[in-house]
């Protein structure tokens, strides 16, 4: 079976453009129309993503699909559209204003090489809002916000996206005869493509700066900027690379359920706080105790407190083990406090103060003098028969606390200790259990 597709003669609606007389935007859009006609695309499969400003009005004059969003963010919508539907042709139209407020999006889309094409209608000022200067206004130019002449250096859009990896980059003017063909090349390029098309804002920039068609070329020369195709390179298109990489990623992470195999020895909630240093596996040791509690039919919550730097400062884990289901609530006075380092001690001063003879502190020998009314049990790693790395002291001391409180049988803790550090964990647990017994 063969399908005959009648190529469209135009992708324009019947409405005339809304631009001022002589405005360059219209002829850039005419070129885009020609390019789309040449490519014989289905208008439903083309999405014109328009930015803001006069340039942002463009989508309404095409019969294609359209997305008109927020100022500067057009590249992000185009990226999302393309990531979901790589088969669609996605063309962004933005003004020079968009390259300023949305500069980071342009750079990052270029870097990623998402297969979208960006047409910048660059008229050196914000047309829609009254001719204010933009990132591309040449030095010395008069605009409504640079009455004494612009003091800022203009942005080299092409250079910026070009050096950051863009697949195809072109600079020209709205008067270029080959603009439609360059647009075709840009759209056909698999990677990120950008056309920086200089044009005239006849309402503001032209009268203020006596700029005409020739002036576009001389300004370009004066700034030392080249015209034509500036970058054209083979690149890995992002959405394709993404799907390739995803296909090698395997299966979705499955939930890890915990069987109840042991019996707990407590009939009231019991709280344990482990206070140590960040980076010393305090949280993972507490987690193992939690898992062992769950294996013994208890309901466990674990709240961790640590600084944003993760590997420096304190790390304090609060565990509550309860025969009944409980919400995560704060522990102010724990039943057991496991004290592992100075960093930890600094965070639990108030807890120590609140604790009494019914509560237990399990600590390394250097904390023999700690001020508290709680019972203090010192555990000296020197007495352990096997060598336990410092990062496992937390687990060893927690194991000692398990035996002291009888919250669940020690086997539950050994059973919970699986995973990549199993041997090391069991060694630490056994050291703690032996000493506490």
């Amino acid at each position, binding site marked *: 079976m063969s399908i005959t597709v009648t190529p469209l003669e135009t992708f324009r609606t019947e409405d005339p453009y809304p631009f001022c007389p002589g405005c360059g935007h219209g002829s850039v859009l005419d070129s885009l129309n020609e390019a789309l006609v040449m490519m014989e695309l289905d*208008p*439903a499969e083309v*999405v014109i*993503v328009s930015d803001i400003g006069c340039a942002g009005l463009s*989508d*309404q004059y095409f019969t*294609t*699909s*359209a*997305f*008109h*969003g*927020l100022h500067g*963010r057009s590249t*992000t*919508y*185009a*990226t*999302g*559209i*393309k*990531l*979901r*539907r790589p088969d*669609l042709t996605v063309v962004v139209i933005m003004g020079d204003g968009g390259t300023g407020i949305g500069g*980071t*999006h342009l*750079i*990052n889309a270029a870097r990623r090489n998402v297969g979208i094409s960006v047409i910048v209608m660059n008229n050196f000022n914000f047309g829609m809002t009254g001719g204010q200067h933009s990132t591309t206004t040449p030095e010395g130019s008069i605009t409504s916000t640079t009455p004494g002449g612009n003091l800022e250096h203009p942005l080299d859009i092409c250079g910026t996206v070009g050096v950051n990896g863009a697949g195809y980059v072109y600079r020209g003017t709205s008067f270029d005869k080959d603009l439609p063909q360059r647009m075709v090349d840009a759209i056909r390029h698999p990677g990120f493509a950008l056309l920086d098309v200089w044009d005239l804002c006849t309402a503001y920039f032209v009268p203020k700066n006596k700029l005409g068609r020739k002036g576009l070329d001389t300004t370009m020369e004066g700034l030392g900027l080249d015209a034509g195709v500036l970058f054209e390179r083979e690149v890995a298109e992002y959405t394709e690379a*993404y799907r390739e*990489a*995803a296909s090698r*990623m*395997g299966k*979705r*992470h499955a*939930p890890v359920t*915990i*069987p*109840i195999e042991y019996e707990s020895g407590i009939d009231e909630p019991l709280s344990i706080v482990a206070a140590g240093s960040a980076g010393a596996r305090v949280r993972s040791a507490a*987690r193992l105790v*939690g*898992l062992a509690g*769950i294996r013994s039919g*208890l*309901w*466990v*919550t*674990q*709240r*961790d*407190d*640590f600084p*944003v730097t993760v590997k420096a400062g304190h790390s304090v884990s609060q565990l509550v083990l309860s025969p009944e289901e*409980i*919400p*995560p*609530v*704060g522990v*102010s006075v724990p039943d057991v406090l496991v004290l592992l380092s100075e960093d930890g001690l600094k965070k639990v001063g108030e807890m120590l103060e609140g604790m009494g003879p019914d509560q237990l502190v399990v600590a390394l020998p250097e904390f023999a003098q700690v001020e508290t009314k709680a019972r203090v049990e010192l555990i000296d790693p020197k007495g352990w028969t096997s060598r336990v790395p410092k990062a496992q002291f937390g687990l060893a001391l927690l194991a000692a606390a398990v035996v002291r409180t009888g919250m669940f049988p020690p086997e539950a803790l050994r059973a919970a200790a699986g995973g990549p550090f199993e041997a090391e964990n069991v060694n630490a647990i056994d050291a703690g259990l032996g000493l506490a017994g």
Partner: protein
Amino acid sequence: MREFIDGTTAIVRGALDAGCSFFAGYPITPASGILMQMMRDLPKTGGVAMQGEDEIASIGMCIGATLSGARAMTATSGPGISLYSESIGLAIMGEVPLVIVDVQRMGPSTGAATTVSQGDVQFIRWGTGGGFPVIALSPSTVAESYWLTAKAFDLAERFRCPVFLVTDKELAMSLTTVDVSAYGEVSVRDRETAVGGPPHTYQPSDQVTALHEYGQGEPVRFTGSTHDENAYITKSPPVVNALNRHLIDKIEEHRDEVELVDADLDPSADTLVIGYGVTGGAVRAAVSTSRAAGTPLSGLVVQSLWPIPETAIGEAVQGVTRIVVPELNVGLYRREIERIVGDIDVIGIEQIDGDLISPEQVLEVIG
């Protein structure tokens, strides 16, 4: 069977089970876990997960992907919601189904990244210009984090609007024990799509049109500007009025479809404690402790923050003479309760020191 699981994992699982196929986010504590788990798991289900160059790019990608057929979610914390602000407006205006997770941390500004807070509850409601309604759900347990995430996807499709899932550092990052039977099941509706015809309908004003997606055979127009039913920009007062009324009425006139509360009422109680999010735990614990001691007490945990569940709250306050509202902020939600309960005494517990409110604090206020 039980699990030792945090809210982050439950949210990601809820999203994936609800059919989430696109995620983009920017790292921020305490929401980064959602980004990392999405980057790990979403590609394996055929979806796409992206780390954007910032929050604005991330939510922009989500909106673009949704229009191309994805069911999208993004996640951040207060500072990122600030950057989402303008795009939230775009999603409201363009009627984009989108799930936005706010894992609250202490603000303002960078605040305290690893400190719990409930300071965003009004911010997410009024987070963009114009004052138009949004929907916000707030889990109070890890199991709720799962099914309310799925529910957020369902409501986003039902109303074609952004739906917030408002959680916090404590629920997202603390491990709790969950019996797998507690996750519950939510039926998440399929997206209604249409090809051809106008992508919006304003009459009757509360009706929602099926979503028109790109690349389905007919051109689709989308705009964040004030538009007619065909998504062409207009300033015509009757059309603008119809559009704006529609954006309000489609949610406000169907509030009953959103209302979600967990009410534990005792008709003989003269006091009702109302909480939400992580504070819901203290509410439930206070209620059971009080009852165990022989004093009747009623509790209401609000799961749908916005629109505020006026019907359920109205029913819960029948016969009570006093309402206690504990919050990890300066009484931000209490003022809404005060607005709807008339003469009943409303007492707040406002805590902004980074600690959780304990059940004992609630009981102390009740006396």
